[in-house]
């Protein structure tokens, strides 16, 4: 393992790990606030108990997200000091604002988790709303920085160095809007489906259990709503990518030759040497239609660009297919849920439906990780597209493999512990339908 590989593996592992908790930190507060709001408005003890239990789970996940996020902040410098020396002054703005958003999130989460008996119901609920809002704001700012890496803006390049910096312009680079919308929706969809999956699993064992039904209702509303909006956001992204990052679009679609009326490849394996995507289901004119909303539009292929700026089309295409496939399945399931709920005027409880929701539980997070890989692999071989290669950004410090294996072991351990703890939490759900247990909740 070269030091560059070790640095990429370490940073990739850290981000892949952190992203799960970050996404939960964005979306879980929305679920728990909705539960508390329902509980207070409808005087529903079940919903209030649900809010407390969700809050406990959130406490564990948020703490791991906070510390793993700290690792990322330091690793930016530990692994990529040359990238940060170049980019820090240009994109430090969104990072600084993210710092404050994270501050607000941590402060109000503290009040929410430990304040059930200490603050008024109104302030408690307001704190939850602020946690949800600042969580979304954090994701917004961080995604802005990521969007800049794919489409750097707000500076001039003079002899390899940045000059005439315009940080506000850099904060909103071309394509920022679609990435932000897509990321936020993915957080809600992934978390909503994961939570729905867990409660659907228990509902199958105890049909009609009021606690799990209430949970499933809220989780499906949030996750399903986001999953239904995500294809629209995906369409927006595709059109923006065609305009702002044509190489990435060509790679993720496995599209090699520039042509009008380009087909869409569903599945298949791109072969970069032969410049062809094999074994794909081709939908005639599909890509032109998706990328430009015009079946005859010209879509640039990878061959249009020098080989040394290509990302690996095989990896990017496969990750993209996983994301789109799972996203589509989730949207379809959300549609079914909507239909069933409409007909029954209640949270659907059909065993087959519950089975499908249980099975779909992990899909959102797999799709989210795959989508993140599309963005990161799709930007290679660059760290800052067209400006700095990943190999130029890496630290001169040797023996990075040691750090990689140490952190990999640490994350594995933490991941296993979190899973175990959450599993115990969930198993301790209230026994009888609707009976509020004594609030062991978030009291320290």
């Amino acid at each position, binding site marked *: 393992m070269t030091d560059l590989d070790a640095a990429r593996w370490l940073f990739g592992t850290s981000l892949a790990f952190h992203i799960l908790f970050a996404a939960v930190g964005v979306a879980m507060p929305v679920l728990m606030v909705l539960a508390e709001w329902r509980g207070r408005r409808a005087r529903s003890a079940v919903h209030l108990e649900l809010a407390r239990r969700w809050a406990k789970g959130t406490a564990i996940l948020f703490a791991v997200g906070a510390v793993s996020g700290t690792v990322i902040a330091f690793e930016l410098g530990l692994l990529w000091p040359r990238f*940060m020396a170049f980019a820090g002054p240009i994109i*430090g703005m969104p990072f600084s604002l993210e710092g404050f958003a994270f501050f607000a999130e941590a*402060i109000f989460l503290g009040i929410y988790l430990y304040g059930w008996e200490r603050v008024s119901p109104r302030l408690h609920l307001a704190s939850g709303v602020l946690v949800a809002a600042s969580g979304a704001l954090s994701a917004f700012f961080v995604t802005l920085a990521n969007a800049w890496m794919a489409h750097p803006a707000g500076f001039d390049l003079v002899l390899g160095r940045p000059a005439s910096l315009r940080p506000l312009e850099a904060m909103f680079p071309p394509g920022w809007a679609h990435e932000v919308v897509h990321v936020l929706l993915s957080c809600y969809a992934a978390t909503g489906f994961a939570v729905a999956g867990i409660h659907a699993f228990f509902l199958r064992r105890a049909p009609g259990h009021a606690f799990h039904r209430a949970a499933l209702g809220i989780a499906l509303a949030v996750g399903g709503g986001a999953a239904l909006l995500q294809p629209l956001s995906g369409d927006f992204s595709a059109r923006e990518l065609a305009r702002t990052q044509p190489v990435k679009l060509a790679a993720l679609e496995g599209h090699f030759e520039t042509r009008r009326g380009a087909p869409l490849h569903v599945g298949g394996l791109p072969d970069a040497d032969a410049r062809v995507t094999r074994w794909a289901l081709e939908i005639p004119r599909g890509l032109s239609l998706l990328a430009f909303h015009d079946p005859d539009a010209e879509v640039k292929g990878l061959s249009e660009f020098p080989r040394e700026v290509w990302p690996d089309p095989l990896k990017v295409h496969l990750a993209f297919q996983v994301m789109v496939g799972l996203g589509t399945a989730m949207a379809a399931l959300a549609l079914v849920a909507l239909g069933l709920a409409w007909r029954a005027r209640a949270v659907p409880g059909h065993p087959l439906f519950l089975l499908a929701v249980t099975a779909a539980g992990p899909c959102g997070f797999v799709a989210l990780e795959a989508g993140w890989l599309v963005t990161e692999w799709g930007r290679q071989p660059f760290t800052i597209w067209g400006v700095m290669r990943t190999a130029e950004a890496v630290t001169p410090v040797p023996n990075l493999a040691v750090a990689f294996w140490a952190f990999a072991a640490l994350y594995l351990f933490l991941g296993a512990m979190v899973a175990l703890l959450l599993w115990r939490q969930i198993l301790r759900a209230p026994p009888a339908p609707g009976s509020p247990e004594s609030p062991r909740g978030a009291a320290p």
Partner: protein
Amino acid sequence: MTPADLLAGAVLAALVCYALSGGADFGGGIWDLLASGPRKREQRDLVEHAIGPIWEANHVWLILVVVVLFTGFPPAFAAVSTTLFVPLTLLLVGIVLRGAAFTFRSHGDSRDAVQARWGLLFSGSSVLAPLLLGACVGAIASGRLRVTAEGMPRSSPGAWLGPFPVAAGAFACALFAFLAAVYLAVEARGALQEDFRRRALGAGAAVFLGAAACALLSWREAPIVFAGLTSRGWSLPLQVATGAAAAGAFAALFRRRYGLARLAAAAQVGLIVLGWGASQHPYLVVPDLTIEAASAPRATQVPLLWALGIGAATLIPSLWLLFRVFKGRTAGSPGGT
């Protein structure tokens, strides 16, 4: 006052806040490790109760420091990240394990054996983190770290390790333990309060020894710190003020005036961090990077200052609310004061 000076001041101010809040959380972990006597369990419960709602918010000060550093002083961030790779990586392991283990203990299995295992991990990493943090500060101030103008290392990856950084690490542990013991004495009642009073006095003595050791070592090992302690224009007033705060904290602890002790101890710790910052002014990384040389363009620093101002305007009332809810007069037992 250039924007760069203001930003460097903001970094120092954030570090003071981190020492006073996050530092005390590490100190709480140290007392968890050193819990002893008939009220062992109560001591640990108090630590958990005291830091539970606030440690995550307190921890964000450190992230703010990192962010302002890489935005406003990119070569300094590169310099610190490359030359301190080993201690910073270990610090991260400590930070991750501290936070995760604390949360797992608070929300996990309540069986004693499991609790004890997480407790050990939490308290052990609460010692590791300040030790390394202090060592990093000591290494930066000592002039052992040599870098190019871009912040790329010229010294070996092991250059950070030396007597002064080690002493600074131990000093940081003593300082945070002292601060935490004073804070905890304020929140405790009865016999538990006496426990932490004794601990605060003991840790205060350790702080004194640590300060003396650092001062002696700095003569040879960190000349810029030694000059700050002895021969700069502000050296004497700062020394007197720090000494007065320390004496005040001791006197207040003796007389069981805990609220006053908290104020004096916080002033003492704040002045020590300020003293370090003033000593190494105008260097960010002694002796190769000054504030001016490491500055990002003005076009970055001015908007960053605005962002910090806007951020502070939202942060201060939020923090005030957090501390009023959990540390204010009306906060329920065993909080209070």
